[in-house]
């Protein structure tokens, strides 16, 4: 039974990521599940409610390819480079389709994932103070402390239908081990109805480490072996972030044509992530 947890990525996406669902691909700069994002694009999913603290290139690509109806996020830039041009084009010009924004702060999204993981209906924080954010987003409200009377910001819990992560390794029964920068990965994983994890390696036994970050098999829905699955982001102790690619992306994504051409050649035109990486290696 547990061995059935390890499946091909295309099968995991086809089975669990259906049009219109709320999907979170998490990983804060580190371990961004690009392979899974590309497979969702290949399978031409539509009307997704995408959730991610930092949309990053992976959502710039999915939004530009028309997969998304709505975006829950807190910082939508290309780190250290500038804009996410496809995200901007969707917001500023509704291309290729309009995008609803559910905009928060990092602290707000993080708290909402924690509330989701705990199956509480909302999260509270000392946040959104003295800003226009609460006016811009009706999903930012307030709650009163029953002891002190103080008012605190409240945001609804985030419970994605599907959370997708990338990690270093999993064993054959579906236990997943992660290390390095974890962002809100664990909370996003625990908040989800379905959890899909792509990994660099499948091992017979996870390295024993009492307090290591492990997602136990009974939390994980499906595991897909996907080496390089976080490229061009990185995997601690496997490969580093391709900062040059992040810089190149600015020019690729700035223009609708060059973006479509690149996506056709590198994502739609590649059978899977291995083919995508092979194509980049050939071009290098």
């Amino acid at each position, binding site marked *: 039974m547990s061995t059935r947890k390890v499946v091909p990525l295309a099968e995991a996406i086809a089975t669990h990521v259906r049009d219109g669902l709320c999907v979170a691909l998490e990983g*804060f*700069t*580190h371990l961004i599940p690009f392979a899974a994002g590309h497979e969702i694009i290949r399978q031409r999913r539509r009307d997704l409610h995408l959730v991610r*603290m*930092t949309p990053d290139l992976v959502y710039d690509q999915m939004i530009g390819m028309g997969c998304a109806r709505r975006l829950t*996020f*807190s*910082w*939508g*830039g290309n*780190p*250290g*480079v500038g*804009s996410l041009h496809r*995200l901007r084009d969707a*917001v*500023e010009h509704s291309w290729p389709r309009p995008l609803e924004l559910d*905009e*928060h*702060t*990092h*602290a707000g999204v*993080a*708290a909402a994932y*924690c509330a989701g993981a705990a199956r509480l209906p909302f999260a509270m*924080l*000392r*946040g*959104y*103070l*003295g*800003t*226009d*954010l609460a006016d*811009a987003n009706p999903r930012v409200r307030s709650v009163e402390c029953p002891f002190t009377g*103080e*008012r605190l910001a409240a945001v609804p819990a985030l419970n994605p239908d599907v959370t997708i992560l990338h990690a270093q390794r999993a064993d054959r029964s579906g236990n997943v081990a992660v290390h*390095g*920068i*974890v*962002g*809100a990965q*664990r*909370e996003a994983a625990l908040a989800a109805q379905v959890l899909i994890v792509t990994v*660099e390696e499948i091992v017979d036994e996870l390295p024993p480490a009492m307090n290591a970050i492990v997602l136990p098999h009974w939390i994980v829905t499906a595991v897909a072996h996907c*080496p*390089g699955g976080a*490229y061009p982001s*990185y995997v*601690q102790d*496997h*490969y580093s*972030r*391709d*900062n*040059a*690619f*992040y810089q190149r992306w600015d020019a690729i994504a700035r223009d609708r044509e060059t973006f479509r051409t690149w996506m056709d050649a590198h994502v739609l035109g590649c059978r899977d992530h291995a083919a995508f*990486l092979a194509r980049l290696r050939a071009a*290098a």
Partner: protein
Amino acid sequence: MNDWTRDEIMTVAAARLLWDGCVCFVGIGLPSAACNLARLTHAPDIVLIYESGTLGTRPDVLPLSIGDGELAETAACVIPLPEVFAYLLQAGRVDVGFLGAAQLDRYGNLNSTVIGPYDAPSTRLPGAGGATEIAAHARRTFVMLKATPRSLVARLDFRTSAGFLDGHGARARTSMRGAGPQAVITDFGLLTPAPDTDELQLTALYPGATIDDARAATGWPLAVAATVETLEPPTALELDTLRALQARTREAHRRAVRLPA
């Protein structure tokens, strides 16, 4: 003609505001350079926190992203992001937070969300990220941005992060515990809040910069302190350390990444 660039003197001026041992919430770009310059010069025990959860990190090169592996590898420890915001920042354990923005107003309020109306922006900016809660909870914040009449504005298009709100003690009357922006480091010098009104005023100039330069670069009638200090030029140590750091960083970011097989 100065033998330093605008970015260099802004970085040096910011680094000098930091003290040894202070717990500093670092942003990417100039703040990251300033914090690491301080660490490599007068503040070896400064505690650098990046919102990615890397605590006490000592990067050899500046990260391009807030979560580069370099930060994790050189950190005292790496913790989940929700804890960074709840247990460290919100808990008031951060001494200094750095902020940048597209727009700043005279009370130090910041906009990094949109130019134009929120629902139909002419320019969609990245948004709040960690800034809103850094602005609220860090014991003090330092703002770094390049001055133009389009960045130092009379009126923000959107308030993403709170400075002194409408001034005159307005911030102190909220539940925000941080003291707010104590300095704006910009390309002619420093703005600091006036005690009573909280309005930013010119209190220091870089060598060679003038009050007229400052006024010309500011989109509101800029208040000028009774005495305007002229900052010391960058020392040779400061410039050499910063340039070596930048050179290491350019070299590292140029290095081609081996594509995973």
